């Protein structure tokens, strides 16, 4: 089979992508930061750092710490805010051939809805991804994503506010990921992405203080891959909307595992830090795998796990 006949295109709830490889929110800045290293035009989609209505300063440092095959972060959702994003960051992104997905976050349901609505006014945005791992300030700070009712509520409100393709990004810190997935599907999302980071912690034994100033943070990187893959498989089996796999993906082989488990596309997070060229290498790697196995379209391996 000729390598050029391999078809990498996938569709995520109405959004057509040239290939299934996206960058995960918070790990690829606003795209521009990686332009010296990657051909941005080749990516499936760029998902930008989570945006809130107002700019946020984030948590005090230290904000990151390395752990075995992983890292903890407590960035605290620092971002430039919606207005600066639209004026300073979006124009550069829209010049790429790649789809732009805006990750949004808020303290309450209304904030999410307002963000979605305002973003819908801007041409060129491919989709909205809602980060529901944030605390619901009106509900005592419990994360939206850990309660299926809150998760459904925020999804439904955002659904009403926009006609853009809507991706809901799930938190893995739950007993029953399928329950949350079904709830947000029913509430009207077009796709589900998972996983966000696992809650973790590290301690400096010399000073007996937490290594993160925020005490706890989100675990990402290869360490979490087995958990992410399991959750993607569970969710892909119980929803009808496309699933996007995230968590520790650091090679084409990793990405292919998620596709086989049922993900229609994947996101690369922490691996961008270690190898800024990883996204392009994974696109090439998926293509080579398909050619070697004489499979003409990536869509044919999605959910093809034999159990």
């Amino acid at each position: 089979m000729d390598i050029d006949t391999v078809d990498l295109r996938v569709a995520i709830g109405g959004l057509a992508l040239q290939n299934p490889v996206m960058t995960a929110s918070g790990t690829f800045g606003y795209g521009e930061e990686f332009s010296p290293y990657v051909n941005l035009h080749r990516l499936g989609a760029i998902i930008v750092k989570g945006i809130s209505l107002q700019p946020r300063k984030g948590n005090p440092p230290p904000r990151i710490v390395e752990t075995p095959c992983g890292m903890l972060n407590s960035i605290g959702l620092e971002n430039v805010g919606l207005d600066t994003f639209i004026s300073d960051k979006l124009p550069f992104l829209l010049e790429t051939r790649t789809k732009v997905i805006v990750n949004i976050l808020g303290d309450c349901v209304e904030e999410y809805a307002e963000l979605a609505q305002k973003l819908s006014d801007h041409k060129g945005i491919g989709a909205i991804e809602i980060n529901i791992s944030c605390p619901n300030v009106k509900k005592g700070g419990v994360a939206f994503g850990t309660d299926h009712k809150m998760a459904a509520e925020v999804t439904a409100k955002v659904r009403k506010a926009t006609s853009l393709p809507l991706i809901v990004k799930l938190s893995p810190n739950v007993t029953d990921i399928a329950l949350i997935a079904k709830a947000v599907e029913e509430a009207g999302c077009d796709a589900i992405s998972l996983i966000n980071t696992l809650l973790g912690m590290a301690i400096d034994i010399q000073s007996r203080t937490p290594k993160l100033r925020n005490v706890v943070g989100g675990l990402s990187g290869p360490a979490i891959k087995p958990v992410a893959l399991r959750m993607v498989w569970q969710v892909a089996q119980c929803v009808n909307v496309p699933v996007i796999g995230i968590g520790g993906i650091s090679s084409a082989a990793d990405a292919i595992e998620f596709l086989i488990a049922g993900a229609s596309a994947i996101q690369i997070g922490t691996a961008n830090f270690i190898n800024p060229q990883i996204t392009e290498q994974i696109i090439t790697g998926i293509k080579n795998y398909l050619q070697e196995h004489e499979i003409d379209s990536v869509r044919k391996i999605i959910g093809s796990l034999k159990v």
Partner: protein
Amino acid sequence: MPQFQKKAILLQNKKVTEDIYKITLESPEVARAARPGQFVMVKAFNGFDPLLRRPFSIYQVTDNGNLQLLYKVIGKGTKLLAGMKPEQHIDIIGPLGRGFAFDRSKICIVGGGIGVAPLFHLMKRVLRSPHPSKVTVLMGARSREEMLGITQDFEKLGVELGVATDDGSMGHKGPVTELMGEIRDQDAGWTVFSCGPYPMLKAVAKICDEYGWECQVSMETMMACGVAACLGCAIPAAAEEIGYLHTCKDGPVFDARELAWI
């Protein structure tokens, strides 16, 4: 500002003192683009443990156009780096960050321990500039042994050094900042360039503020990406409305007045 991800070829990895090494890398593009105070992110190990790249200041670009780093063995990453041999490949990203701004004419370099790393590159460039500045170098170290390790290249340049050691085994006994007072009376209006442990930099910044000198400091924070994407390298800004600056992009060299020094 060109930036690259390149496989550099290790040319030499030389032990300088008990725990300080000097590594020479062939990476012409990065070397050509490097300005004093900038750094590179180094991945010298396969596998995911350790996972993250490690940041190192550019110690100098050698006369042959090679990149040189001076590093201290601290933990896993630097231990693995110290074990690497000539002809092996090391993946580097750089040159990164904002370096020193040194069009000033009266330059005082204040280094502490391995904090000397970015200062030597600066020193060389300053001495080579068409209107060479007046330069004073003050260096602090734990002991005579460490001092000899970090100052040997400075001595080859023929610059005069004020030295201070914690144990008094060489030069002044005490913190290097105590040497700053001595040059105060010589003349006014120094610009200080400093790198070293946080408490030292804090003291340097305070003294400069008092004396009315300009002060540029090279800071260290944890870094995951080095390219302004992760926002992990936050450092508190003096101006509350700014909140945090980011060491990899706004630094690693800051005007001391930009920072909160908490």
